[in-house]
Structures are given as C-alpha cells and as structure tokens.
C-alpha cells in the first residue's frame, strides 16, 4: 500500500495538468465530466439516428407500398417497380436456421467442457484459439467456403443425402453446384461458434459454486450435476447465447454472399441456392441510384436487418444482464 501511495503521489506531482487552459482543477473535472457524459450519451443517440435515417430513406417505398406486399410478395422486379422481399427474407432465415442447427450443439458441448471439465491449462490453450476464430475476417471465411465447403457439399453431401433421402423435399438436389444454403449454413456455423461458446461459457461459470457442491454432496455424479443443476440454472443464459449467435449470423454479409449462390427464389431444399438480405444490399449498391425506388427498397432491407438484429440483441442482452446481476 505504501508503494502504491508513493507511486500515485509521484504520478500526480509529475504532471503539468493544472496549467492547461488556466482553469482550476475542479472546473476542469466538471468540464470533463460534462464532455465525457455527452460522448457516452451520443452512443445512444447514434442508435436512434441510425434507425431514423434508415427509416427516412426507405420511406418513399414504405409510403406507397403496403407492408404485406413488401414482406410477402415473391416478385422482385425493380425495373417494373415490384419489390417483394419474401424470397430474400426466406433466404436469410433458411441459411441462419441451418447455421444454428449445425452450430448450437457442438458450441454448447464445448462451452460445458471448457467451463466444467477442462483443466485451467487446457482452457488457456483453447480459449485464445477460439478468440482467433472470432477474429478471422469474413472474406477469409468466404474463401475457405469457396475452396473447401462448396466442393464438399457438391461432391460428398449432396450425392449422399440426395441418393438416400432425396424423397424428402428438404434434401432434394435440384442444384448441380455446391453454392447452396447448406454451404452458407456451414460457413456461418463456424463463424458463430466463438460467439455461442464465449457467452455460454461465461454464463455457465456464473452458476454459484454452492449449487454444484450441494448436488455433488447429495451423491450426484458430475454429469448429473451439470444436467440437472448447472444447465437448468443457466438455461436462460444459454438460450441468450444462441439468440446472440443467431443475430450475428442473420446480418453476416460477405462470407454468405460468396457461397450461397445468390438466386432470388424461395428455397425448398437445403441444396437450393438462396439470396439472403445482406447479399441483396451488398450486390446492388452500385446500380441502385439509377432506378426509382430501388435505393429506398435497399435501405428498407437494411432497416429490416437492423430492427431484427436489434430486437434479438436486446432480448438476449437483457437476459444476460439479469443473470450477471443475480450472481
């Protein structure tokens, strides 16, 4: 403590803080509080402004087309003034759902392993690697998708599932290329691994130690404790982690765009090509200014993305905040 005090005294004395601007120290403190508070407030304003701006920019199309037509019409003919988002919304939902089905089980098992079984040495090796997975840029995921996942879907999964389960519409192969919903889903699944693992591991570790000990003391095995106590207690948080992963996948653009085929159709099978909303925005930014209402439609697509992600994020963050506060 003595050393600490010395150090603080030294650092305070060294500075020439109190000559700057010629203001007294308390005045500067109040001024700084005001400025920093305003900056903090501005983040909230930024969020509101983003919603308002995207709403204002998509107003030209929202004002003249009924919402049902925009959301549920399957006709996308910008030149004829027909803007039905339905194929794109379905494309996004299909790819995201496939990604979550693939990603959720291994992510949760990994999170449980890291939180409950792994030694601290294993954790120290594994967690930075998972962080690294989170840091890989989406175009690199896209490259990997094009080089590995698309051929794998085309040469291995599609022939196999198509041959044995082709009678189920979900697995029908009508698309000879590997550029498909499944390829997009696989790439997205790997992209959301780190999100789900990191958040659910944190949630599982926040379960009070006393609960585990009580269960173990009653003679339960470790796995029984995890299954009946830990997971039950952390279920809302784990769900929040999955929802967070979902919203991350929902808005992912480049990686999906590169492997999903970009055909504006309502998909019926996991081997069909699709055209998710983010890809629609990214692919058409160049020409959107020349066709009437086109830019309003694309801004509308951004607004849909923003609102959906906002909603899911809010829900899961509120759950997570409550869990942490209970701890």
């Amino acid at each position, binding site marked *: 403590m003595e050393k*600490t005090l010395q150090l603080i005294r030294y650092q305070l004395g060294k500075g020439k803080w109190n000559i700057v601007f010629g203001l007294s120290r308390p005045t500067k403190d109040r001024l700084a509080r005001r400025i*920093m508070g305003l*900056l903090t407030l501005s983040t909230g304003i930024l969020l509101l402004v983003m919603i308002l701006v995207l709403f204002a920019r998509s107003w030209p199309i929202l004002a003249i087309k009924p919402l049902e037509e925009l959301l549920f019409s399957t006709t996308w003919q910008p030149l004829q003034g027909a803007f039905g988002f339905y194929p794109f919304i379905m494309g996004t939902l299909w790819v995201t759902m496939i990604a979550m089905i693939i990603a959720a089980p291994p*992510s949760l098992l990994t999170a449980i*392993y890291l939180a409950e079984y792994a030694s601290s040495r294993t954790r120290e090796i594994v967690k930075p690697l998972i962080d690294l997975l989170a840091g*890989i*840029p989406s175009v690199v995921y896209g490259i990997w998708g094009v080089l590995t996942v698309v051929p794998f879907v085309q040469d291995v999964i599609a022939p196999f599932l198509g041959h044995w389960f082709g009678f189920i519409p979900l697995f029908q192969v009508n698309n000879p290329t590997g550029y498909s919903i499944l390829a997009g889903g696989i790439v997205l699944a*790997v992209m959301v691994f780190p999100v789900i693992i990191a958040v659910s591991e944190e949630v599982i570790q926040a379960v009070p130690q006393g609960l585990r000990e009580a269960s173990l003391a009653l003679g339960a*095995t470790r*796995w029984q404790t995890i299954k009946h106590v830990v997971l039950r207690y952390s279920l809302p948080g784990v769900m929040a982690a999955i929802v967070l992963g979902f919203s991350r996948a929902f808005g992912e653009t480049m990686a999906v765009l590169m492997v999903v085929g970009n055909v504006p159709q309502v998909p019926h099978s996991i081997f069909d090509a699709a055209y998710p909303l983010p890809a629609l925005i990214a692919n058409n930014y160049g020409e959107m200014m020349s066709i009437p209402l086109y830019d309003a439609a694309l801004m509308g697509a951004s607004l849909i993305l923003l609102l959906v992600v906002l909603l899911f994020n809010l829900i899961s963050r509120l759950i997570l905040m409550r869990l942490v506060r209970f701890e």
Partner: protein
Amino acid sequence: MNRHKIEELIFKGLMMASTMFVLGSLVLILGTVIWRGLPALNLAMLTQTPKGGYYMGKEGGILNAIVGSLYLAGGATALSLVISLPIALYLQIYAPRTRQSEVARLVLDVLWGIPSIVYGAFGFTLMLWLGIRASLLGGIIALTLLELPIMVRGMDEAIALVPNALKEASLALGATCLETAFKVVVKQTAPALLTAVLLAFGRGIGDAASVLFTAGYTDRLPDSILSPVASLPLAIFFQLGTPFPAVQDRAYASALVLTIIILILSLTSRWLTGRLTTNIVR
C-alpha cells in the same frame, strides 16, 4: 459400471469431440488459406500496385489494397480511440454502477451486434447528405462506427479490473476524478487498453461490407482523404470474382496476407499483455 457412469463417459467424449471439431475448423481454415495462398504469394504482389490488365492475369500486386486497408483501419482506430477512451473512463469512473452506465453498456452491446452492412448503408447515407463521394474519409467514418462499440466495451472491461482501493487512494489524496482517470487508471491498464485497440483494429481491417459502399475502390495508392481507396477484403472479393484462375490464385494469396496481419495483431496483443506492465501496481 452403472448407467450413470456410462452416460457421463459418452457425454464427456462428445464434449471433447466438439472441442476438437471447433479447433479443427480453425486449423482447416488456416490450412486452406495457407495451402492455396502461399504458392501464389510473391514479393511483387506485396510491393506493386495493379498494372494494366492485372485483373486478367497480367503483372502487378495488391499494394494499393494493403496500404488502403492500413489507412482505413488506422484512421478509424485513431478516431474511435479518441471517442472510446473518454466513454470507457466515464462509465467506470464518473458513473460506476449506475442505471445510466447499465443502459449505456446495453446500447454499446447492441451496437456491437449491428451487422457491418448496416453501418455501410448508414455511412453511405451520411456521405450523401454531407456531399462526400466514396473516399478514404467515408470509409473511415463507417469503420469508426463499427469499431467504436468493440473498443469501448474492451476498455470498459479492462478498467473494471482496476482495484477500487487504487481509485479511492488517488481520490483520497485530493486528485479529481479526471486526474485519477488519466494519471492512475489509464497508466494502470495501458496494456489491456492497447489490446482493446488492437482488437478493434483487427475487426476494422478485416471488414468488407462496411467499406463496400463508403470507401470505393481504386488501383492507385490513396493521395487524398477525399479520394477513393482500395482495401484488402474487397481486393480479395473482386479478384475471386474474376473468371481467371491466375487472378483467383491472387485472391487466395491476398487472403493469406490478410490472415497473416490478423495473426500478427493477435500475437502482438498476447505479447503486450505480458509486457508493458512497468506502471502496474499489484
């Protein structure tokens, strides 16, 4: 062995398999990029800008994209640092454990989750209203919005680890909150703050969707903040989109360059966490 033991063994096996699966996907991605990128990578790619016919397989390199990306991410990181540090300090020192800071954290977490394509669309609209065309400045604005929440939350969590006694000792000696913030807390957390900065830089340099609308693309090196600028992610994307295998190979090489930058950033921040502890009181 009873039923419970067997069930536990099965699930433990599944968990380890899942962990290996997740780590295996990382190895597979890095392996694919290295395996396809390394043969196509050469010095000319790193030191030249695209010459005429580059996108049909003629001579040149991606220097324009490398420099452009460094400018874009560097500018955005500098700008968000200036905004983020005061916000993080405000959350932790002026308003710790208040309803206000809880709400601000929620907003920042939500902003973190917003897809980069939405930031791109929003930035594009801002630029239209300000009368700026696709340019370095536009790209920096969009990337700053993207990096801001990442940096603030990273710094916020780093500052939260500073022991309360240290802040109280500083305040008890008569230092104002401002002095405590910049002279004690920032010095104490310098390595962790820098880690947050590097994380945000890495996110910025790898993002394609937000600069697609806002930064444009050019084969030349950027000469002004108002001229369009190339970026690595878009260079990868455009080269992959050409029908020529030789150019596609260059896309793989460019992806390798980007991946190496990300790896260097990640290793540096690990190394920094270990070093730069000269000012830290424990």
